[in-house]
């Protein structure tokens, strides 16, 4: 479904990714793991068109999208839930969701979509007419995900959805990701919480200092990668230990 090949991208001058290749197949839940600054968000930004790749290709459903604008990429079915949620604080929950449906608006379907979001996130129905900026962090994350789902994405990309949330809220978000996958949504998940992510994903990629270090199933990753060293140790030359 999504094939990224030999991707180079940089954000400003410093945060950069080099030679990233990854694949997400239909119906899969794939994680992109790594420490802060490893290049996970940069990769998602390059896929969604916010960053223009310097080199390499991004193919989605057989079409090259590497040079498309973000608004064109959403239309093709990739929706990004950005890092930090990026809720429109001055807009109501309703208006946030309405914008989520912008790329594929259909009057008849819209009402039904809203009802579906209310079923997934009952809190959004309660807060429907409130400003997005007045929601709590967890509620904002739910709104950000609902907003992305309103465009009926074929591929949903989540950037650090658990960041800054309470443990209880984090549990809820992870349960939700599993539920979305079971509904048939293809998901590319970026997470710092590798342990948690590996419990739910089909496959995972590990990024360190801008390049791909490992790719495989959660079992392989747990067996071959010393995750503690990835997150706690690791020096410049040996950012993480991979035992092949």
């Amino acid at each position: 479904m999504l094939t990224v090949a030999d991707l180079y991208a940089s954000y400003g001058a410093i945060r950069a990714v080099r030679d990233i290749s990854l694949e997400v197949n239909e119906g899969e839940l794939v994680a992109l793991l790594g420490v802060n600054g490893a290049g996970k968000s940069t990769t998602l930004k390059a896929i969604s068109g916010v960053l223009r790749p310097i080199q390499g290709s991004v193919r989605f459903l057989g079409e090259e999208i590497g040079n498309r604008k973000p608004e064109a990429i959403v239309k093709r079915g990739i929706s990004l839930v950005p890092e930090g949620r990026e809720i429109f604080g001055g807009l109501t929950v309703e208006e946030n969701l309405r914008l989520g449906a912008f790329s594929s608006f259909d009057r008849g379907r819209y009402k039904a979509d809203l009802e579906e979001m209310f079923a997934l996130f009952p809190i959004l129905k309660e807060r429907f007419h409130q400003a997005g900026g007045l929601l709590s962090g967890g509620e904002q994350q739910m709104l950000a995900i609902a907003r992305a789902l309103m465009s009926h994405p074929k591929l949903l990309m989540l950037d650090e959805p658990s960041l800054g949330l309470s443990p209880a809220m984090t549990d809820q978000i992870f349960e939700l990701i599993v539920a979305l996958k079971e509904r048939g949504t293809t998901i590319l998940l970026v997470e710092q919480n590798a342990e948690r992510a590996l419990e739910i994903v089909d496959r995972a990629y590990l990024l360190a200092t801008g390049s791909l270090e490992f790719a495989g199933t959660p079992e392989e990753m747990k067996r071959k990668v010393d995750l503690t060293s990835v997150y706690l140790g690791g020096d410049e030359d040996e950012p993480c230990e991979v035992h092949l």
Partner: protein
Amino acid sequence: MIDLEFAINTISLGSLYALLALGLVFVYGILKLVNFAYGEYIMIAGYAMYVLGGFGYIPWYVTMIAAVLFAALVSYTTELVAFRPVRTKSMTAMLVTSFAVSIFLQNLVLIPVSPRARAVKFPAIFSHTLTVAGATVPVRNVLIIGTTVLLLAGLTLLMKKTVLGIAMRAAADKFTTTRLMGVPANLVISATFIISGFLAGVVSVFWVSRSASVDPLTGSMPLLIAFIATVLGGMHSLQGAVIGGFVYGLLFNVLSITLPVSMISYRDAIMFVIVILFLLFRPEGIWRKGYTEERVG
């Protein structure tokens, strides 16, 4: 009944300045660009009225509507031709471009028309006066208030009830995220320039009617007023711009009647002192943003 007269004239002046400031803030909100060519849209609309009025057989209201639409078109064209190519470059490039557009538009009328002022015809009704509850006010001032009420109501509807308006508010807050919703960047930016130019055109009708003449520098004073009003009211919201416009109008009129005759020429200097005080002690303006990004907890 001097009080009612004062009230109506102040509201009228405030209305005009509110529209002025609003046109500037519309573009600032999205692009974070103070468009120094904004005054030129007002000037160009004045010349449109001069040219159309010169034919003699076009009804005045047609002339005015055409001038307003022309200002919107010129604003849109400057976005397309001048601002869009440098948009992804630095902020400085945008700012310098706006100066270039301003100078270009001034010369566009200066060379083929004349550097001297041209008389613009207005219907007699613009200079009539009206007696409301014993107060004598110019009809023009009542027209300004009526037009402003209609425009503010219309813009509020546009911004609150239409998807384009919602997208424009979202883009003023988080531009990239708005694009991630599938909202085309060009659509939002073009729309803001068209609205900005439209407001400049409406302001032009009333501004130019005061002296019934237009010259290549007609736009500089309204630009300055718009800028000061937004500093007073707050650059970061449309509400702030409207409030700033009314506050400016009020301050200006209060100074006009309270200052002794010998001091009246210092009126503008006093306005600038007020602006400097605002910049020092309340740089965000009267209207701060009414919400926080994320509630704690």
